[in-house]
């Protein structure tokens, strides 16, 4: 198909200077520890490829200063120690997102020895745009055509040899998901990578580039491997390159570029358009050359999208899927949560009691604080793992982009776009990863608004509080109360977003663009690694804070504030903790829970919401729960094994039931109430219990979330969030309490 008018003429090619080429290659061969960076468009299967190439050597961390994931590996290849660094997916080197900025900055500053460029074989033209930009660096390039199998299904047979001849760099074929071609990829890339054939831009532009490159040669502070790239970026008016150069004192270069642009403009040349057109003309030419006969086939993606994006079924299907994910999370994970928090913890406590029987104070600390603290963190992991698995599946399969497409119209009423829905959904699992997920949003104000409303999304740590109160106070309508909390959280979040948009953070202009990548069945190994790593990093971050909180609360409860009481045997109301809570409790009296015990349990919740229930237990049940019977080794093992087996059975048995409709209102039988639920039923009225739940839902996010917000957007935003949420929580709880009283609860 050709356009019915004159398309841009084919640009000529620019063969790299032979001397420069030889010098670069010699440098690469002499390098004892070469650095290889992996660059490619999003959705090219790059993460799977890196996993296949690096295997167990892969280390995942963060880029400093931003929460963009950094994957790197050190491995021995043909006797050399090779540093492999995966750069975040980018459509081009003119950054529009923090991830693309990381990629561009790394290419400028990390002085890579080889660029390994990953292409989607089924989408050559667009992927080659980035390749052509990469070839403008003085860095050897090797190309790998990934997803070859998928391209063949679409009827595209790419001729790698022809592409390699035309680009002047090695081109290999891989199917990373099946580890085809990945074994020797690194070795051959290191051997064969070279400077490729460049696009020759229209003469006026090449003249300007030549002049700018000449000026740069006199400036030793500029990375010498990037002169041509920087010159082109200046002419394209790339704001981030301009910002970077002016910040490093190179305003003379910017002035020179502006002078060139003025001349080009006067001659009717728009450099941005001419450069893009020249690259696409070349990319299209290369694509036609390497894919001789392309026939369009109706793909699986087309058929699935017919359903997933259906005008009537699309949104119900999406909401059903979200519900399914959460039901799956709760029913599959909760037997293990109960197992860790119940029988396993009892077993370990029993052993500790037996071992430390000679040292009562130590026993009390271990059994009363350390084991419950560790247990709290551990009991959180099954939920997170299942949730992260489900979320990674939806993300990696390509469905999340469809969710953004479906929800865009709705989110627009809040001045946000559809992509903002994804961190909000993640927030139901855990606010912490959700805050990091905001980085995929383009505008800073969007990222801040979403991060600030995120904590209103009821994370799974808050669920145990709802469940125990629902069981205690609303035996007939427990599920409705729990659902109500989720809905109220969303309502408050959306109202708050609307308010923020009209005050501090108005929407930045600039359109919305989403890519809808082809559906792919995610590789289980990658999914598992993803989910496991996210879960482990949560455990790592939460471990210290939660353990410390539980220990401090235990200590404050053990220290008497009244003379005549002894350490560790003091009744809760006479401890320091009790006295502080009593001083604080009048603040909560208008909300219906001015009782010091209720108010006191909120304090540790600042640090981690999952300890609220634990602290309620400590306060309301006191010693009763803290001294389990000593347990022998054999009896303990028997108890643990049989409990684990029961949990596995319950969990597997729950899988088929997730598809059944939820039974609301019949799930909490009164006679099965736990001791804590019975204690709470005596201490709260339905109205004050509801108000307490609303407060727990809305008050200050846990310290880990606050930390994530501070890391992402600065301390000021984090503190403003904390202050706002405390006030909103108080006001909303007050209103709910009054309303509930008015309704006669």
């Amino acid at each position, binding site marked *: *198909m050709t356009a019915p008018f004159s398309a841009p003429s084919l640009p000529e090619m620019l063969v790299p200077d032979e001397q420069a080429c030889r010098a670069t290659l010699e440098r690469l061969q002499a390098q004892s520890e070469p650095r290889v960076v992996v660059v490619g468009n999003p959705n090219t299967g790059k993460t799977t490829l890196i996993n296949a190439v690096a295997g167990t050597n892969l280390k995942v961390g963060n880029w400093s200063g931003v929460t963009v994931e950094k994957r790197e590996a050190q491995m021995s290849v043909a006797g050399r120690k090779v540093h492999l660094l995966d750069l975040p997916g980018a459509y*081009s080197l003119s950054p*529009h997102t923090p991830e693309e900025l990381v990629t561009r900055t790394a290419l400028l500053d990390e002085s890579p020895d080889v660029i390994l460029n990953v292409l989607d074989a089924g989408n050559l033209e667009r992927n080659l*745009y980035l390749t052509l930009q990469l070839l403008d660096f003085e860095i050897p390039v090797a190309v790998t055509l990934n997803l070859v199998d998928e391209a063949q299904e679409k009827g595209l047979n790419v001729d790698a040899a022809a592409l390699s001849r035309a680009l002047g760099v090695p081109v290999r074929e891989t199917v990373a998901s099946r580890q085809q071609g990945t074994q020797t990829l690194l070795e051959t890339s290191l051997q064969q990578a070279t400077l490729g054939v460049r696009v020759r831009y229209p003469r006026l532009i090449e003249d300007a580039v030549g002049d700018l490159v000449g000026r740069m040669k006199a400036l030793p502070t500029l990375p010498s491997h990037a002169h041509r790239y920087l010159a082109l970026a200046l002419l394209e008016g790339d704001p981030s390159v301009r910002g970077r150069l002016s910040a490093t004192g190179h305003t003379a270069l910017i002035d020179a570029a502006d002078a060139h642009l003025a001349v080009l403009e006067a001659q009717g040349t728009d450099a941005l358009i001419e450069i893009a057109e020249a690259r696409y003309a070349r990319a299209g030419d290369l694509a036609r050359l390497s894919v001789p006969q392309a026939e369009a086939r109706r793909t699986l993606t087309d058929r699935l999208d017919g359903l997933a994006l259906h005008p009537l079924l699309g949104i119900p299907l999406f909401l059903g899927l979200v519900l399914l994910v959460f039901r799956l999370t709760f029913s599959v994970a909760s037997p293990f949560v109960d197992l860790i928090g119940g029988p396993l913890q009892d077993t370990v406590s029993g052993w500790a009691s037996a071992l430390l029987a000679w040292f009562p104070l130590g026993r009390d600390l271990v059994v009363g604080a350390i084991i419950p603290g560790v247990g709290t963190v551990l009991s959180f992991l099954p939920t997170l793992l299942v949730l992260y698995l489900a979320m990674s599946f939806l993300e990696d399969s390509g469905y999340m982009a469809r969710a953004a497409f479906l929800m865009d119209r709705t989110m627009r009423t809040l001045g946000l776009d559809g992509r903002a829905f994804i961190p909000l959904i993640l927030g139901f699992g855990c606010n912490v990863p959700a805050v990091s997920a905001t980085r995929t949003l383009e505008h800073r104000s969007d990222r801040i608004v979403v991060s600030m409303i995120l904590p209103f999304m009821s994370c799974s740590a808050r669920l145990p509080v709802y469940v125990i109160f629902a069981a205690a106070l609303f035996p007939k309508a427990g599920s409705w109360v729990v659902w109500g909390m989720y809905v109220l959280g969303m309502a408050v979040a959306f109202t708050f977003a609307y308010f923020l948009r009209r005050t501090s953070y108005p929407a930045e*202009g600039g359109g919305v*663009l989403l*890519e*809808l990548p082809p559906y792919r069945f995610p590789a289980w190994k990658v999914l598992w690694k993803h989910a496991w790593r996210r879960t482990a990093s949560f455990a790592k971050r939460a471990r210290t804070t939660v353990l410390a909180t539980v220990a401090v609360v235990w200590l404050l409860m053990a220290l008497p504030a009244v003379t005549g009481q002894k350490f560790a045997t003091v009744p809760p109301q006479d401890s320091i903790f009790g006295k502080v809570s009593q001083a604080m409790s009048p603040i909560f009296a208008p909300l219906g829970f001015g009782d010091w015990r209720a108010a006191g349990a909120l304090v540790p919740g600042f640090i981690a919401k999952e300890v609220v229930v634990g602290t309620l237990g400590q306060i309301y049940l006191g010693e009763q729960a803290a001294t389990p019977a000593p347990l022998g080794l054999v009896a303990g093992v028997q108890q643990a094994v049989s409990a684990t087996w029961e949990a596995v059975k319950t969990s597997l048995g729950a899988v088929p039931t997730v598809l059944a409709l939820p039974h609301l209102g019949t799930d909490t039988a009164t006679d099965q109430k736990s001791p804590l639920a019975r204690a709470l039923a005596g201490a709260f009225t339905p109205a004050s219990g509801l108000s307490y739940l609303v407060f727990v839902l809305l008050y200050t996010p846990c310290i880990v979330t606050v930390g994530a917000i501070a890391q992402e957007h600065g301390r000021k935003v984090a503190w403003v969030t904390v202050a706002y949420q405390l006030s909103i929580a108080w006001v909303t709880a007050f209103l709910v309490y009054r309303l509930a009283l008015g309704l006669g609860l």
Partner: protein
Amino acid sequence: MDDLALDSLKPGEGGYILSLDRTHPLRRRLLELGFVRGARVSIVRRAPMGDPVELRINGTDLALRASDLGGIWVRL
């Protein structure tokens, strides 16, 4: 030979890119994604509430809001 803005096309229709308005908020990104003169673009579908709109260009599916289709000019 009709020159049209992309927002006047219906699902299933397509055209060849003529130009992008200089003031288009996504101009730079669209150029990088292949919205250059002569490229073939077609409308795949509209989202359930009519907006955004799914486009196909260079074998890639992209979604843009209807309001951002206005500054993209095509010839059928």
